[in-house]
């Protein structure tokens, strides 16, 4: 189980790292190089985003990557093939991240089955709240996959408990309002939010949106279990290539 695995890993490290890539950006070959670089640099888990034409929760960096991947013709079939390669080559949990329409059009049961067959461990679907999730939850549970749900600073305590009834694996805590990729100030406000999250669930807590330096990761130690780095590694890969990504990740802990 993902939750148990993450708790075991967490006993060995102050904090775990999860990184994010958009599959097929800038192309499939380089996507694979980026994954390899990240795994070698020590990340503990990865989310692979299947590009979607309407990524409303994503900011400019990830939005552009989605568009570019689609312009290059990335199909859902190729993304699944890619995920299969990744999960067979690397020994860390691999998740899918995508928007609900991708699952819906593929067939939710079929999507879950294919995830399980190809060694994926769970999925993050940011536009699918638990209220709309009945089919998804059933399929994920049938194939022993973790449906990852999201907490936000605007989520009430009562709603956090409600979401916790459906969540598996870990909870993805969005650090602030807004979309991916913008600045986050890691300050005292975040501390009280994270302690509310901690009280609502005994699942590991991942914190994402705006994490982009060792200082941010240090701040999260003791307050969360997993730091999520999204837009920043995409920016670095664009600007400095693989060496830049590798140095950055090695420098985070």
């Amino acid at each position, binding site marked *: 189980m993902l939750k148990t695995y993450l708790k075991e890993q967490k006993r060995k490290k102050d904090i775990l790292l999860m990184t994010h890539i958009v599959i097929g950006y800038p192309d499939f070959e380089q996507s694979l190089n980026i994954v390899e670089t990240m795994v070698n640099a020590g990340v503990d888990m990865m989310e692979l985003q299947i590009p979607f034409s309407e990524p409303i929760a994503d900011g400019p960096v990830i939005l552009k990557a989605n568009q570019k991947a689609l312009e290059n013709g990335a199909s859902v079939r190729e993304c699944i093939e890619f995920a299969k390669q990744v999960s067979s080559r690397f020994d860390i949990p691999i998740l899918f991240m995508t928007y609900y*329409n991708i699952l819906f059009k593929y067939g939710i049961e079929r999507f879950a089955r294919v995830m399980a067959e190809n060694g994926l461990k769970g999925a993050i679907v940011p536009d699918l709240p638990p*209220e709309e999730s009945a089919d998804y939850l059933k399929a994920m549970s049938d194939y022993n996959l973790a449906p990852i749900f999201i907490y936000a600073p*605007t989520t009430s305590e009562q709603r956090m408990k409600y979401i916790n009834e459906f969540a598996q694996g870990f909870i993805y805590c969005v650090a602030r309002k807004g979309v991916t990729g913008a600045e986050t100030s890691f300050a005292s406000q975040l501390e009280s939010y994270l302690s509310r999250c901690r009280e609502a669930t005994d699942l590991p807590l991942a914190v994402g949106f705006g994490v982009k330096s060792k200082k941010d990761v240090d701040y999260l130690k003791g307050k969360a279990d997993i730091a999520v780095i999204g837009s920043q590694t995409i920016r670095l890969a664009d600007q400095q290539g693989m060496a830049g990504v590798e140095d950055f990740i090695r420098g985070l802990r």
Partner: protein
Amino acid sequence: MDNRGYYSQFGGAFLPEILAATFDELEKMFEDVKNDPGFWQAYEEIMSSYSCRPTPLTFAGNLTDHFGGAKIYIKREDLNHTGAHKANNVMGQGLLVQRMGKKRVIAETGAGQHGVATATMAARFGFDCTIYMGEVDVERQRPNVFWMERLGAAVCPVKDGTRILKDAINEAFRDWVSNMDTTHYVLGTACGPSPFPEMVTYFQSVIGTEARAQILKVEGQLPARVYACVGGGSNAMGLFSGFLDDPVELVGVEAGGKGLNSGKHASRLCAEDASIGVAQGYKTYFLQNSDGQMRETHSIAAGLDYVGVSPILSDLKESGKARFEAATDTEVVEALSLTIQKEGVIPALESAHAFVQAFKEAPQLSKDDIIIINQSGRGDKDIFTVADAFDDPGWKAFITRKAKQYNA
């Protein structure tokens, strides 16, 4: 949110968690308002003193004679302040924003009519205002951009995706997830996550309520059919709302663009290349490929150039309670031209789609039958597009002279 806003299988609220609390608040506020007769009174008061409600129902005698069939009436939403039905929705949501105590409004716009209406409302109520508009639409509806800016709105051209209406909606959501404490998103059509489809329909229902009373007053009989163009579906839902329980055929007309088999159209309810999906927070028919990626759409009318459609209309289509047709760009320009010449009214390119289908069917109906066409907006905003469609030499010469003056 307790009410997920489903119309059989269509609708729902597929929201990022960050917006859940905002939608709870909006849903509650809308419930309060529906149960408060004072609110509707205030709404009617502002619509009659600031806009032009009730809008007239005009008998189109010359068109009726021309086609020799059903009596043709035109519901004049073009006579609203800012020139389209969009004002009905915007002023309603504006009153809601006042109640919520928010100070800033944002909106998407395609044709620019919803943007202008929102900017007007913001000026009147003293709100800050930002309008998102696809780069392609900024070019084709430039007069409306000018007026939005004069009205004090910041107009942000959207350069991502297909650079039209759907992309403007995505950007408006991205703004909203950052600023929901101070900001309300005035969605312009009967689409998006619940409660927007119901709420926009609620405010637009004045169109149908008035039209029904007006036709009974002058003719003492209900229309056989009513026609409205369908972009997101708000003017159609507004008109249809008045006749849902009557033996009246409801006809929605989508953008057939260059033809339903051309791949260049925006017809979600008539075309083979549409299927059910979930995007922009709701479930409906979308123009998408088999992976679920949205397709490019095309229409001569920016306001109809959209990948999705109201979940309420998808439901009316599946239950057979409404019929949907498509009009091509060429047919639209012809119908527009005929209407201008015969009746001296200038429909928007969007509205002209409804006229196309009504003109096809009027001759087949009897002289005792009545039809109503919703003229959702006026055509002034389309001056550049229509001048190009007619290849108007005088207009071209004028623009050339004007450009020379600016370059001098």
